[in-house]
């Protein structure tokens, strides 16, 4: 029988939740890395026992953790304790938490400045990894989206990281600015039909695409309209919160922007609004049903200053028509006095026949639906504030 494993990152540790295919009873383990902020953890599609986790702290910085047994045990990839930190030839061994922007004349780009909140130039500073995206085919290859916005890649299981500097240095970096959560690269989508194509999104710069494996990038934000920036239709500067794709239709992208839910049918070349009858088109996560490419999910939030559901009712909205026509999903969700948020990486879907949908809240609840959103139950409540939710469908 199939099983699922839900990976939950919180402000004070990680939790791993497992169930059989019925998804009625859950085993919850954790907190792993207790007391640390776990922005994201995700499993490799090529080896479901290979997990990567981003562990960070304002005091101690960034740590990368790896599990090779599905989350039972973890280690920091790189040089084990007590071993020399250099090879006999004098070369440094792996330092899994070393994220250094590539400024070398041969391969990198000069480290210039980006815009600070007040529009003044601000130096690029690494702060943390927001999102880890394992390769679709190689368990040892994994991408990391970081704050200040940049894209890194490891090809040795997380031991060493190299920036893909063409993104940060493609030309518009000076005009990127932080969103309220920082200037983060939070979304990485690997195109299953084209290994050279990657989509990423940055708050607040927008969406970018490479068609040559990460060497060169260009912004793909035509059609976005953002009233909070000086030029609402600028090429960059949009606060994209999240993008999603169905793997059977990699040219179709869905976006939850700061305001507006958007859709592209040409791999990001142009976007159109599909907010339709949503009670608010502000929100953070967006995801796609695993078997129905036109069924999408969002969680409307009241506004950019009131980060909680409209009317105190926690409602997931589903569109079965690829946008514009939305229905509220409320069964099992609190419909009064609910003032939590659902962050951008805190929603995921499994790929069982009866699709499971999962999300976590800033109030520490993790909800699951085993009927594609028709009804919801709590897996667990009262965790620390949930930052990310991922799910693995296991054989």
């Amino acid at each position, binding site marked *: 029988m199939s099983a699922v494993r839900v990976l939950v990152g919180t402000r004070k540790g990680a939790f791993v939740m497992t169930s059989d295919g019925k998804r009625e009873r859950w085993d919850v383990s954790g907190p792993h890395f207790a007391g640390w902020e776990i922005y994201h953890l995700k499993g490799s599609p090529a080896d479901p026992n290979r997990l990567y986790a981003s562990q960070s702290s304002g005091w101690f910085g960034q740590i990368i953790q790896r599990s090779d047994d599905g989350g039972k045990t973890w280690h920091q990839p790189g040089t*084990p*304790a007590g071993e020399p930190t250099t090879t006999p030839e004098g070369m440094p061994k792996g330092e899994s938490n070393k994220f250094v922007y590539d400024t070398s004349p041969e391969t990198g780009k000069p480290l210039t400045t980006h815009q600070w909140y007040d529009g003044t130039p601000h130096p690029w500073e690494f702060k943390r990894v927001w999102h880890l995206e394992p390769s679709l085919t190689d368990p040892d290859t994994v991408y990391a989206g970081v704050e200040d916005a940049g894209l890194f890649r490891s090809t040795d299981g997380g031991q060493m990281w190299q920036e893909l500097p063409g993104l940060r240095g493609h030309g518009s970096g000076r005009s990127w600015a932080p969103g309220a959560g920082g200037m983060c690269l939070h979304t990485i989508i690997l195109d299953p039909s084209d290994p050279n194509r990657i989509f990423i999104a940055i708050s607040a710069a927008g969406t970018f695409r490479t068609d040559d494996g990460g060497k060169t990038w260009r912004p793909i934000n035509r059609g976005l309209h953002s009233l909070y920036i000086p030029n609402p239709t600028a090429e960059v500067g949009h606060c994209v919160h999240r993008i999603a794709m169905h793997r059977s239709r990699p040219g179709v992208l869905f976006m939850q922007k700061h305001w507006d839910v958007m859709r592209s049918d040409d791999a990001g070349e142009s976007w159109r609004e599909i907010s339709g009858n949503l009670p608010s088109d502000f929100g953070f996560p967006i995801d796609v049903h695993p078997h129905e490419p036109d069924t999408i999910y969002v969680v409307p939030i009241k506004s950019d200053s009131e980060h909680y559901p409209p009317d105190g009712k926690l409602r997931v909205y589903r569109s079965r028509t690829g946008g514009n026509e939305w229905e509220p999903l409320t069964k099992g969700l609190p419909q009064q006095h609910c003032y939590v948020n659902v962050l951008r990486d805190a929603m995921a879907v499994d790929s069982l026949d009866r699709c499971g949908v999962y999300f976590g809240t800033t109030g520490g609840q993790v909800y699951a639906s085993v009927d594609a959103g028709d009804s919801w139950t709590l897996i667990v409540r009262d965790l620390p504030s949930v930052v990310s939710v991922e799910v693995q469908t296991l054989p």
Partner: protein
Amino acid sequence: MIRVVLPAHLRTLARVDGEVTLDIEGPVTLRSVLDALEACYPMLRGTIRDHVTHQRRAFLRFFACEQDLSHEPPDTPLPDLVVSGAEPFLVVGAMAGG
């Protein structure tokens, strides 16, 4: 033998209980103690000082013998009581709520 006291989260990362002890040849300074600490416990690299600049992370402080050494130059000799092992060198997380 130099004794080093780490904050709880770094002890967890280093997988040690209690104090860490280090053998250092030559002058015992902030730099040589941190070099030796990171050599013995590579997983701590980047958690106390920056990988490249070796600047102390902003929310960490260094103390020994009731002296605040956080802002001393890296080649400052540590007190004799630390060198003799009578007193530990302390890595302390700056106090903050939460």
